[in-house]
């Protein structure tokens, strides 16, 4: 899913060619994100749009030849002059009097030509890897699409070309994006642009045109750029009086591989040439007058984090009574946080939806969680940038990120952005492939992501002041993080502190289900089954299966009842009606209800299964297919506790499940006890960062 949908889209017309554009946000200043060599479309700016549109009006353009724009034929249709006219047509079509231009490579020439024609409409230019070819020679030009070795093999050329543009390690996702966009067009179109009439065509013209630019210019250029040598960027900067930011070790597409740095450079540049400083109106408070404040970022993937975070926050407040906590969270987490009387940061409403992304990625009882995570790159970047804004508007004494993958990843990529103590908490470390035999690519990518995580920690340990693993190290699988990488357990033991698994209740208080049943109004004297699937709509298929199985159970146990909890994002009305079965949406303190059950049927999510383990109730769990965490981490942990009956959705019929439910009801659980005090231990560690040795 995209992190930010356009508010408006349409086509500008230049001659008989239609040029597609999209408009985001409504600031008084407009940024026109120019098109470029048509191996990409306007989506090349996906790491910029969600952030920049919070501050400015942003217009993206699909260069002719790709995306939603026409693909005319022949080199004449792709000349620099005509491409510049496309951008002008987009300014007109979107009613934009003047704009800052943000351009990559060839887009810089088109920006120059646009400014030459209508200088008053160009307020400034951010030139990324400026492709003003005649300014300097390129000693090692890339192979063109119509080079003999690529004849008839456009996909082959695309792989070669995309690879050359991303020399940085761990660039698999931006590389794949580029390949995908390149395959939206064809060899003829790329060939036509390659041989299109150039303007400026000579060095003299290029110098004159560059010098004629009257607006402020910022140049960003990677030293490892194979497409446009960095010397070209430096020369362009000299001619235009621009500030140059040389990006060491960076390739041709810094905005895709290093979005945070590029975004902040663009924002600062535009601000410098538009508004005055301090216009945000945020007062600066003398440091000693500040209240202690923490920002708590709570991932929405799995509702379980929420209750443990609330438990830890409560214990932290007991230790640091003057602490104010603000939560940066999205539904369904934000609803729970608010229901507990906690303060939600207002920027929470602007978070791009992760839950919707996960739902869009799942099918029946199947969610390839690693691929889904990987395809969430755009949402993670957008949400990191929001965090980055928030922590610069308000000074915090502590950042807590519970599985805040966005915050953690981008802080390690941009360690200079860390300005407060930061605690990362998680119950899962690393990606383990779910189909190592059948899907070699998955195994390779998991290892690459794990290697990046290890490099991040080893190179920038200061980014985290504390890494907390929730649970004992022996609850982690002993599988390697990749070829020649340490195992999950060994590496976690080395790099994390541990606290006992945090359950949001005292397990000792839930050992007498009959009393609990009376208290919650269920009554006693009949078999009570409870089914629940966590916080997203992913679990619908499992609930349907369970409903069918329960109908069969009723034939053997006519007095049996079932409570089916669908969760906040799934409408109970979508599920079948079965005699003896009550359907409920969100239930507060679900664990109390689970603790009443004679048998529970649940998804393989960690929180729910561990709550059942702590309460020592019989349960059957179905890990989502292809979900690395549920398949590996949760299952391993439950094995350590000797808890639960694992079943596989794809291989389970209603008859099988009904039999398993009846069987489970006869069992007497003897699980390993869940140690107490996890929340207190975690809170003590966090408090130390706030109060120092005195605390």
């Amino acid at each position, binding site marked *: 899913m995209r992190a930010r949908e356009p508010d408006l889209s349409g086509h500008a017309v230049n001659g008989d060619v239609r040029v597609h554009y999209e408009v985001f946000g409504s600031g008084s200043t407009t940024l026109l994100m120019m098109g470029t060599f048509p191996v990409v479309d306007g989506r090349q700016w996906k790491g910029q749009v969600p952030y920049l549109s919070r501050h400015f009006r942003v217009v993206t353009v699909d260069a002719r030849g790709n995306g939603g724009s026409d693909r005319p034929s022949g080199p004449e249709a792709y000349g620099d002059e005509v491409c510049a006219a496309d951008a002008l047509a987009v300014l007109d079509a979107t009613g934009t009097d003047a704009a800052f231009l943000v351009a990559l490579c060839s887009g810089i020439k088109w920006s120059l030509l646009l400014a030459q024609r209508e200088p008053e409409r160009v307020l400034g230019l951010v030139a990324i890897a400026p492709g003003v070819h005649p300014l300097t020679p390129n000693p090692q030009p890339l192979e063109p699409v119509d080079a003999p070795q690529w004849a008839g093999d456009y996909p082959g050329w695309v792989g070669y070309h995309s690879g050359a543009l991303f020399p940085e390690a761990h660039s698999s996702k931006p590389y794949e994006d580029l390949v995908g966009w390149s395959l939206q067009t064809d060899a003829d179109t790329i060939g036509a642009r390659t041989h299109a009439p150039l303007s400026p065509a000579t060095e003299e013209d290029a110098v004159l045109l560059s010098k004629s630019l009257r607006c402020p210019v910022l140049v960003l250029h990677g030293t490892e750029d194979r497409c446009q040598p960095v010397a070209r960027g430096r020369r362009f900067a000299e001619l235009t009086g621009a500030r140059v930011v040389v990006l060491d070790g960076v390739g041709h597409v810094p905005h895709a591989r290093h979005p945070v740095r590029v975004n902040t450079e663009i924002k600062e540049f535009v601000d*410098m040439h538009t508004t005055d*400083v301090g216009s945000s109106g945020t007062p600066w408070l003398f440091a000693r007058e500040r209240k202690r404040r923490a920002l708590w970022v709570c991932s929405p993937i799995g509702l379980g984090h929420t209750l443990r975070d609330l438990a830890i926050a409560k214990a932290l407040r007991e230790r640091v009574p003057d602490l104010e906590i603000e939560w940066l969270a999205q539904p369904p987490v934000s609803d729970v946080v608010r229901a507990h009387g906690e303060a939600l940061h207002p920027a929470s409403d602007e978070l791009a939806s992760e839950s919707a992304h996960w739902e869009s990625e799942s099918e029946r009882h199947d969610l390839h969680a690693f691929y889904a995570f990987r395809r969430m790159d755009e949402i993670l970047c957008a949400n990191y940038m929001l965090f980055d804004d928030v922590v610069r508007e308000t000074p915090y004494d502590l950042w807590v990120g519970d599985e805040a993958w966005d915050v953690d990843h981008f802080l390690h990529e941009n360690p200079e952005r860390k300005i407060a103590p930061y605690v990362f908490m998680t119950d899962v470390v690393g990606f383990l492939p779910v189909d190592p035999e059948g899907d070699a690519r998955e195994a390779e990518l998991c290892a690459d992501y794990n290697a990046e995580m290890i490099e991040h920690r080893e190179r920038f340990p200061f980014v985290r002041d504390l890494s907390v693993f929730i649970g004992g190290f022996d609850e982690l699988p002993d599988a390697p993080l990749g070829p020649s990488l340490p195992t999950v357990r060994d590496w976690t033991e080395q790099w994390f502190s541990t606290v006992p698994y945090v359950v949001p209740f005292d397990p000792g208080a839930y050992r007498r289900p009959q009393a609990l049943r009376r208290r919650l109004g269920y009554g006693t004297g009949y078999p009570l089954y409870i089914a629940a699937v966590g916080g997203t709509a992913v679990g619908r298929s499992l609930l349907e299966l369970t409903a069918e199985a329960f109908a069969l159970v009723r034939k053997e146990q006519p007095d049996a009842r079932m409570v089916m909890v669908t969760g906040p994002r799934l409408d109970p009305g979508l599920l079948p009606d079965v005699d003896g079965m009550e359907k409920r949406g969100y239930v507060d303190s679900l664990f109390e209800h689970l603790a009443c059950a004679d048998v529970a049927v649940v998804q393989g999510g960690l929180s729910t299964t561990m709550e059942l383990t702590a309460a020592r109730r019989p349960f059957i769990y179905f890990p989502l297919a292809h979900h690395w965490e549920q398949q590996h981490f949760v299952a391993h942990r439950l094995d350590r506790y000797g808890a639960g009956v694992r079943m596989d959705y794809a291989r389970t019929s209603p008859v099988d499940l009904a039999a398993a439910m009846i069987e489970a009801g006869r069992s007497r659980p003897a699980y390993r006890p869940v140690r107490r005090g996890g929340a207190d231990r975690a809170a003590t560690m966090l408090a130390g960062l706030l109060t120092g040795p005195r605390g």
Partner: protein
Amino acid sequence: VRARQPERCGYAVRDGVRLYYEVFGDGPTTVLLLPPWAIVYSRVWKLQVPYLSRHFRVVTYDPRGNGRSDRPGPASAYDDALVVADALAVMDAAEVDAAVGVGLSYGGRVLLSLAADHGERVRGAVFVAPTLGLSASPAFVARFEEPLGSDADVAGTWASYNADFWRDDLPAFAEFFFGQVFPEAHSTRQAENGVEWALETDGETLVATRSSARRVLTAEELRACAARVTCPSLVIQGNGDRIVSPKDSHELAALLGAPLVVFEGGGHGVQARHPVRFNLLVRQFAESVAGRATGTS
């Protein structure tokens, strides 16, 4: 030892009054740090000069009445208009065509006139806790020239804001005054500096700088000045200021259409007490007005 020595120093001479100035650093953009009221002089910028001169050419000068500048005797030598003319004379002497001006306290009032009537020489203006008197003045100001009874014990109170008292015991007034300038906890060093600089001039000179015989701009004239300012501006104000009314800064920002940065819990000397935040703001402002120096980063 000073953290940064000037590259160049000299005197601008105007109407027989010598004004001492210093120039630090180079660069296409000049930042002119105007002196406040002559109870202090250019050293109030000691925490700004080393940083700002890394990024800009910085010019400071001592006001008539303190530092190494002359101390003319009569009250008429301290008219608002003359003090404004001093700033122009220093810019001429230091060969500054146009500068980003930073005016603290009384220097903010000077900067306002300068920006209003000599717009071509001011590229941008930062007003820091400017002394404008737009709101009603406190009662002690009106009693400045009233004789003090010989047995009056006014030391340590605003009643020591009095011509007789200054002639008699400037150190006691300075002690009290700089305590008010820096209401923030842990400001001993800043207050000590203030007292030290005050004692480089004398009671009689200071009395002249506040005399009711001076010709000064009225509140209405200052509002009219604000309406004539065309350069980008920024207003900085501590909301715990005990010397000038923070309301004046709010009004000035509104008149100028300029952003106002409030230092919550800040007193009258935010540049001395909160130098890091202050320096970053000034740098950012000057760059937004004049552009950042070209270079690789």
